[in-house]
C-alpha cells in the first residue's frame, strides 16, 4: 500500500501549507457570507412583499395634490411619489420642471351624494420623462378610490352590506413554485458541489508541479508504479475535498438549510469528486506546465458544471420521473424528500464508475508514457492514434 504513503504525505504537506490553509478558510468565509445573504434573500422572497429585483423607485416623482376630502390622496403610493399639497406656486413649479405632476380633485362627498361622476384633473408636462410614472400611479389610485366610493354607495343603499356573505377563497398551498425550486434547490446543490471545483490547483500542483520542478524523475525512480503515483496523489486531493465538503455541510445545516439526508448527500458529493479529480488528473498528466493545465482545467470544468447542472434544471422544469446521470439531480431529489428508486442511485453511480475508470485509466496511460513526462511531448492527434493502437500497427508495418 505504498500509494497510501504518497496520499498521506501529499495530504500532510497540503494541510501544513500556510497558503493552502489561507485559501481553505477563505473559502469557508465566503461560504458563510453566501449562506447569510442567501438566507436573507429567501426570507424576502417568501414574504408578502416579495423581493424587488428592480432599482428602488422611492420618491421617484413629485406630485402636488389638491384633494379637500383626502380620499384620493390616501390611495397614492408614497413610496414612489413624493406627495405635496397643491398651492398657488404648483403650476409654476410644474412648468419649471421642479414638479412632475399636479392632481386636482373635486369635492368627493358632493359627488357621492348626488351620484354624479367623480371629477379629477391631472396636469403633467409631456416633455417630462417621469410623466408616465405619475400618470400610472394616479390611474392606480383612481381605481382604488373608485372601489372605495362604490363600497360607500352600496353601504348607503344596503346598510347591513357588511353582513352579506361574500364568496371567500382560502388559499392553501402545497409544494413550491418553479422559480422557488430553481433558486432554493439548485442554489443549495451548487453550494454543496462548489468545493469540488476549488481544489483543481492541488491536482495540478501535485502532478504538473512534479514535471515543472523536475522532482518527478526521483519519484518515478521509487519502487512504486506510476499508476499508484497518480492514484495516491488523487486520493489526497479527494480527502482534502471531503474535509471541506463536510465543513460546508455543517455550516449549511447550522444556517438552517434542509438537506434531506445529510450523510447520504455528503457521500454522493464525495463520490462525485472522484471522476472530477480523475478528469483534472488527465489534464494535469498531459499538461507541460501550470499555464497549460489552467487552460485545460477551465475547459474541463465548464463541461463538468454543464453536465451536473443542466440535467438538474431539466428535472425541476419537467417535474418528470426521468432518471438522470447527474449526481446533482440525485442530491436535489434527496432535498425534495422524494422516495428514491434503485435506478435513481444506480444509474448515476454506474456513470461515475465509468467516467472514473476512463479518466484515471487515461491519466495513468499518459503518465506512463516517457515522452509525456520527459518530452518531447507528442501532439493530441498522435496520442489518440497511440491510444487506439494505430501507431503500433504502423510500426509493425514499418518493421520496428
Amino acid at each position, binding site marked *: 500500500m*505504498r500509494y497510501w*504513503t*504518497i496520499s498521506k*504525505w501529499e495530504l500532510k*504537506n497540503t494541510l501544513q*501549507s500556510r497558503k493552502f490553509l489561507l485559501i481553505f478558510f477563505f473559502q469557508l468565509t465566503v461560504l458563510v457570507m453566501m449562506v447569510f445573504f442567501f438566507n436573507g434573500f429567501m426570507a424576502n422572497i417568501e414574504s408578502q412583499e416579495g423581493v424587488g429585483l428592480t432599482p428602488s423607485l422611492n420618491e421617484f416623482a413629485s406630485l402636488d395634490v389638491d384633494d379637500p376630502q383626502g380620499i384620493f390622496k390616501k390611495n397614492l403610493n408614497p413610496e414612489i411619489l413624493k406627495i405635496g399639497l397643491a398651492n398657488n406656486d404648483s403650476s409654476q413649479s410644474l412648468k419649471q420642471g421642479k414638479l412632475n405632476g399636479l392632481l386636482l380633485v373635486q369635492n368627493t362627498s358632493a359627488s357621492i351624494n348626488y351620484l354624479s361622476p367623480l371629477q379629477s384633473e391631472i396636469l403633467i408636462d409631456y416633455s417630462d420623462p417621469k410623466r408616465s410614472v405619475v400618470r400610472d400611479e394616479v390611474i392606480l389610485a383612481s381605481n382604488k378610490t373608485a372601489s372605495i366610493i362604490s363600497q360607500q354607495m352600496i353601504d348607503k343603499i344596503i346598510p347591513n352590506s357588511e353582513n352579506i356573505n361574500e364568496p371567500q377563497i382560502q388559499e392553501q398551498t402545497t409544494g413550491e413554485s418553479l422559480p422557488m425550486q430553481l433558486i432554493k434547490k439548485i442554489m443549495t446543490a451548487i453550494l454543496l458541489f462548489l468545493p469540488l471545483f476549488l481544489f483543481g490547483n492541488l491536482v495540478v500542483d501535485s502532478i504538473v508541479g512534479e514535471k515543472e*520542478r*523536475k*522532482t518527478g*524523475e*526521483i519519484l*518515478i*525512480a*521509487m*519502487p*512504486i*508504479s506510476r499508476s499508484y503515483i497518480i492514484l495516491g496523489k488523487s486520493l489526497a486531493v479527494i480527502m482534502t475535498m471531503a474535509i471541506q465538503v463536510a465543513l460546508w455541510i455543517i455550516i449549511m445545516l447550522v444556517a438552517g438549510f434542509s438537506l434531506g439526508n445529510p450523510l447520504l448527500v455528503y457521500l454522493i458529493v464525495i463520490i462525485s469528486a472522484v471522476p472530477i479529480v480523475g478528469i483534472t488528473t488527465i489534464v494535469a498528466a498531459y499538461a507541460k506546465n501550470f499555464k497549460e493545465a489552467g487552460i485545460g482545467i477551465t475547459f474541463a470544468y465548464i463541461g463538468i458544471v454543464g453536465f451536473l447542472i443542466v440535467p438538474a434544471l431539466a428535472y425541476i422544469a419537467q417535474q418528470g420521473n426521468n432518471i438522470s446521470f447527474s449526481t446533482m439531480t440525485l442530491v436535489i431529489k434527496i432535498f425534495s424528500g422524494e422516495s428514491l428508486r434503485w435506478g435513481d442511485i444506480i444509474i448515476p453511480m454506474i456513470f461515475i464508475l465509468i467516467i472514473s475508470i476512463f479518466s484515471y485509466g487515461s491519466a495513468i496511460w499518459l503518465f506512463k508514457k*516517457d*515522452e509525456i513526462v*520527459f*518530452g*518531447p511531448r*507528442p501532439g493530441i492527434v498522435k496520442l489518440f492514434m497511440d491510444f487506439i493502437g494505430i501507431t503500433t500497427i504502423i510500426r509493425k508495418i514499418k518493421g*520496428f
Partner: protein
Amino acid sequence: MIEINSLTKRFGKITALNQLNLNVKKGELLGLIGPNGAGKTTAIRIISCILHPDQGQVLVGGYDVFKNPLEIKSMIGYLPEEPNLYERFKAYDLLKYFGELYGVPKDILYPRIDELLELVGMSSRAQHKINTFSKGLRQRIGIARALIHDPEIIIFDEPTMGLDPATAITIRDFIGSMKGEKTIILCTHYMDEADSLSDRVAILNQGRILDMGTPKQLKSKIHGDLILKIDLNGSEKFLVDDFNSIKSLKGTENVFLNGKELNISLKSKEDISDIIEHLNSNIMAVNTKEPNLEDVFIQKVSNFQDE
C-alpha cells in the same frame, strides 16, 4: 550485476541509444563518459526503470526491466543530474518520505536517517527546509536520499556538476569510500573524476559505446609515451594543411585537430624538434604531457565523428 544487450531508445525521430551493449560487475565502479547528448542519462534512466526501452534487453541483478521494474528500483539508489528535491520538505522529512516509499521499516529507517545525515555532514540542518539550501547542500541531501534504503547499486548522474571545488572533493571522496561495497555507475563530464574513481570507463557517443576498459587500458591505446599539444595560428585552410602534413611525419602515432589545438602522440621527445621546424611560424604555443583520459576521449570521439 547489470547487463545490457542491444539496447535502443528513441525519442520521436531522435535515436538516443543505438544497439548499446554494456555490462557492470558486482562491486565495480563504472565511469560513463561522453559528450552532451551521447545517451548517458538515457542509459542510466533505463537501468533505473525511469524510462522504458524500445528494444533490447536490460538485466539488473538478474531482473528484467520489462518484467520486474519494481524489484530493480528497490535495488537502485539514483541521484539525478539536478538535485531537484521537494522544496517544501525539511531535510529529515524528505529522507523519511523516501524511506517510506522504499518500504524501509521504521525501526531501521529512523537510525538510518540520522546515520546518513551524519555521513553527509547535514545533521545540524536536519530540521531546515530544502529551499534554504545551496546547491552543494542539496546534493548532499540528494546523496543521502539515494542511499536511504541501503541499495546494492548506486547511479550518480553528474554528481559534482556545478559544485564548488571543496564540495566536489567531498562528494568524490564519499563516492570513493563506497567503492568495492556497492556497484556504482558514475556519469560524468569530468575526466579526472572518472579517471581517479572508476574501475572501468565506458566512452559513449551517439548512443553507442565507443570503447570500454580500465583507465590504464584506455590510456595505453593512445599509442605513445607523451602527447605534444600545439596551439596553431592561421585560417582553417592552413590548419587542415598543417594537420595533414604532420600526419605524414616520422614518429607521430596519432594526430588530432581539436579546434586550433593539434594533439600529437609521440614515441620519443626527439621527434619534437622536427615537428616544430615543420610547422614553423604557425605555432603559438607548445606543451607536452602524459596521455590522460581526456585525450582518449577526444581521440575516440573525433575518430567516431570522422567515420
